[in-house]
């Protein structure tokens, strides 16, 4: 005989303001099988939980229903309370009368009616709940970090320094990401490469880190603690074991005029190349689209020049299969396509450049050796106009968000320009100056006060060329009048956007993304580094626009989550898995095909003499994720889901 306890929570006024909890408690007390029905202001509080435990013990309850908030909030809390009171935790059900009732209804009577329906439905379900035991699964203590920018490096190093194995996958030929392209970094103006390259080298030499560059994640299967990952090693056409990085091949390569991706088109590279001089690993790749040999079968100059015979034109992509326990996604960002801004003349006027291009000009190792020179004629500009929010905070261009870093780097650009070109003049068109961060506001003030950056609050409507000058037409909203500035160079603070293949990649790993393609965290405030998929964590600008300090902090946070996961021998998983009725299974194997986790196998049923009678489906409890796809497919109704059995669901529906 069922003895169910019903506990109705006011949630302060959240529920009680709309639902008549006293009436609800009285009505539920009348329901068959209910032994206790009480209300309380906050059942999630300590005294609230104690009263639940006491009620379980005093009345020998066989199941409880907590009518309160969403099970996502406190299911774990009350399951724990059940366990402490000696009741199997899976005999606890939550009736959500807050999110699905009191918060969404205005009429008190109707909300109370609905709360009764919801609670009654869960009482009927819990009567049919079974005692379940958690499933234990082993953890593979090896982390996969995807992306070799600053976030990926930080996460990899933190995990590796704690003594765990890491595989770091970078799709470009070298580690470094965007940070390797930068000049000096705000707010301390330390040289980006000077702080970045030691990290890159440390990563490459770390005994716990296996570095896979020029590699991409091909597929991810499995689940937390037990992922199976396939990596495609793209063919470099250079043997990574033999190559010493001497660079002879690059010197000899006859194709020298390819615009360098790393220099944002401002510099040139060869067809066999490393992206930049400090590349890690310092092993070149052949760009088959530009290489003469791959175009018409002749040349092979690089192969001839290589003294150790490391160049192999026949090299093929290879695949590596890895067993992985946790994944850190640090795939970074791209800058928005400037073709969207016809009014600013990018692409039409060579001296209209992006912020990232300005970084390359200002870098000592860049194409101009650190001199700010105009791409058109190589002269030093006397007047530079910076346009902030080029794309960001502009719904008409599809980017409603703030790219977060542009205010700071534009101030930095103005400063660097002032330091490099004495007497040069800067004008910065801005919407707001957002300088929240340690030392950030001081930094922008310094740009204005010491380096005489002139800020004009307003948007730019048009850039055109006149008498060798770039004419920038905008509005000064503080003075309330239009302004036109004649400039030698215009720098666009282009919006940060997700990687172009971010959404497809999210589907490969199985994580959620937002409308733009930035990866979603499990909870913006409370679980900011976990993705929606257990065992997959996020770091850096793949989640949202971030500067270096934020990316590093998030990477370390992800690493600590990974390490916490690896601190256990075994993981406990919810026992919500499918089970098959072998007597009625028709063996059509539709479930085998339908299962997205490959959790269903064929099992032989034999008689005593070992003769095969029939084959039926068998659900591997370690692999099943309890999604229920097989249950819906099974025509003979042989498959059922523990914790959500057909009997339970039917009773729930009938309880309404």
């Amino acid at each position, binding site marked *: 005989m069922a003895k169910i306890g019903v506990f109705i929570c006011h949630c302060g006024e959240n529920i009680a303001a709309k639902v008549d909890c006293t009436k609800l408690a009285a009505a539920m007390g009348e329901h068959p099988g209910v032994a206790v029905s009480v209300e309380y202001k906050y059942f999630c509080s300590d005294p609230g939980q104690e009263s639940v435990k006491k009620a379980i013990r005093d009345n020998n309850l066989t199941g409880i229903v907590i009518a309160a908030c969403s099970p996502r909030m406190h299911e774990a809390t009350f399951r724990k309370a059940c366990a402490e009171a000696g009741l199997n935790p899976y005999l606890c059900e939550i009736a959500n009368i807050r999110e699905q009732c009191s918060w969404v209804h205005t009429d008190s009577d109707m909300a109370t009616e609905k709360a009764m329906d919801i609670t009654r439905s869960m009482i009927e379900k819990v009567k049919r709940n079974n005692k379940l035991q958690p499933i234990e699964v082993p953890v593979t203590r090896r982390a996969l970090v995807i992306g070799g920018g600053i976030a990926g490096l930080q996460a990899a190093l933190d995990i590796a320094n704690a003594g765990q194995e890491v595989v770091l996958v970078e799709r470009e030929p070298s580690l470094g990401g965007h940070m390797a392209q930068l000049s000096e970094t705000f707010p301390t103006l330390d040289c980006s490469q000077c702080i970045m390259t030691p990290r890159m080298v440390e990563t490459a030499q770390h005994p716990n880190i296996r570095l896979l560059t020029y590699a991409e994640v091909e597929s991810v299967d499995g689940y937390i603690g037990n992922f199976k990952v396939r990596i495609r090693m793209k063919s470099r056409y250079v043997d990574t074991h033999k190559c010493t990085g001497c660079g002879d091949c690059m010197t000899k390569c006859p194709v020298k005029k390819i615009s360098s991706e790393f220099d944002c088109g401002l510099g040139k590279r060869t067809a066999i190349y490393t992206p930049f001089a400090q590349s890690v690993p310092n092993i070149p790749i052949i760009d088959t689209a530009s290489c003469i040999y791959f175009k018409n079968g002749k040349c092979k100059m690089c192969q001839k020049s290589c003294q150790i015979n490391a160049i192999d034109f026949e090299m093929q992509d290879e695949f590596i299969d890895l067993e992985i326990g946790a994944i850190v996604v640090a795939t970074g960002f791209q800058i928005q396509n400037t073709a969207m801004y016809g009014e600013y003349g990018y692409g039409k006027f060579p001296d209209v450049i992006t912020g990232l291009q300005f970084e390359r000009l200002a870098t000592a190792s860049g194409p101009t050796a650190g001199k700010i020179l105009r791409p058109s004629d190589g002269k030093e500009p006397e007047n530079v106009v910076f346009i902030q929010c080029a794309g960001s905070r502009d719904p008409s261009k599809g980017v409603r968000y703030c790219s977060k870093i542009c205010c700071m780097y534009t101030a930095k650009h103005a400063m660097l320009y002032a330091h490099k070109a004495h007497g040069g003049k800067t004008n910065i068109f801005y919407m707001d100056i957002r300088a929240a961060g340690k030392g950030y506001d001081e930094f922008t003030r310094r740009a204005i006060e010491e380096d005489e950056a002139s800020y004009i609050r307003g948007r730019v409507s048009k850039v055109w060329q006149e008498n060798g000058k770039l004419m920038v037409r905008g509005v000064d909203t503080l003075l309330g009048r239009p302004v036109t500035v004649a400039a030698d160079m215009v720098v666009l603070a282009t919006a940060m956007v997700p990687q172009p293949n971010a959404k497809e990649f999210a589907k490969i790993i199985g994580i959620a993304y937002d409308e733009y393609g930035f990866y979603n965290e499990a909870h913006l405030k409370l679980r900011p580094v976990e993705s929606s998929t257990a065992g997959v964590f996020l770091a850096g600008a793949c989640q949202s626009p971030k500067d270096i300090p934020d990316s590093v902090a998030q990477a370390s946070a992800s690493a600590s989550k990974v390490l916490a996961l690896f601190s256990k021998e075994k993981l406990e998983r919810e026992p919500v898995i499918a089970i098959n009725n072998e007597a009625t*299974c028709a*063996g059509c194997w*539709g479930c085998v*095909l*339908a299962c997205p986790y490959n959790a269903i196998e064929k099992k032989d049923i034999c008689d005593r003499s070992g003769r095969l009678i029939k084959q039926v489906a068998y659900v591997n409890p370690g692999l099943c994720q309890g999604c229920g796809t097989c249950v819906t497919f099974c*025509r*003979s109704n042989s498959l059922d889901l523990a914790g959500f059995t057909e009997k339970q669901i039917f009773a729930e529906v009938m309880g309404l």
Partner: protein
Amino acid sequence: MITQEKYRTTVKELLASDSVKMVIGYKPGSTPDRRRPLFIRSSDDADQLVLDSTCITNLSGYLVAEGLLSDEKRVGIFLRPEGIRSINILAAEYQLNMDQIVIFGFDSTGREVRPLEGRHSKDFSALLSDIKENSPQISKEPLLESIERMNEQERFDFWQEEFSRCIKCYACRQACPMCYCRRCIVDSNQPQWVNTSSHTLGNFEWNVVRAFHLSGRCVQCGNCDRACPVNIPLRLINQRMAEMVLEGFDHFAGLSPTQEPVLASFKKDDTETFIL
């Protein structure tokens, strides 16, 4: 007549050489235009074999009778093209091993019966592909067209009226070669998802559940329709379902013994227009 004689001889030969242990065919029924199944185990049995245009029952369901194929011996069977599609589905759903099946294919136009070339399922793949290609051009039954022209309420009323005669005898299920489950969901009463009483809800639940279970599997052999003692036009539901599956997923049931079930497989280029 010639076809029938030819097949009688072939069946006798195969039985004599022990290539098949049994052949499932047709024999005269209770009236001149009815045929009943014949299970030929000997040469004498073969003399009863009849093959004419009235042999319309899809016999493939007999192949999955418990234990028939478990000795791994071969069984012959007379099948029209839709019957061949049925056994393809049964093979795709692992209910039979195609190598055990010897097919005596036939088809008819008017009163004339002609044999189909081939003995193994794969011999008929070109024929089945042709049928798939031509299926959109085949003109629909006037009744189906008139139902499609109805609005939702009229359509509901139509089926409510038709289903009101349903007595839950499950003859449609027993006659259907696809209904091979050891326990049908309708016989599961813990919980009783499908209402068995003969009111509107129960009538719709049973017939709609059956239609869903046949989506992407029905070959429109008409066994259910002919089996129905109260003449519910069940074929129309399944025809409509087959059309939708063909349009939505380019899935033509029973094209090959390795075809994946439409509801358990997915293609990246599915149009997914039905997802809101």
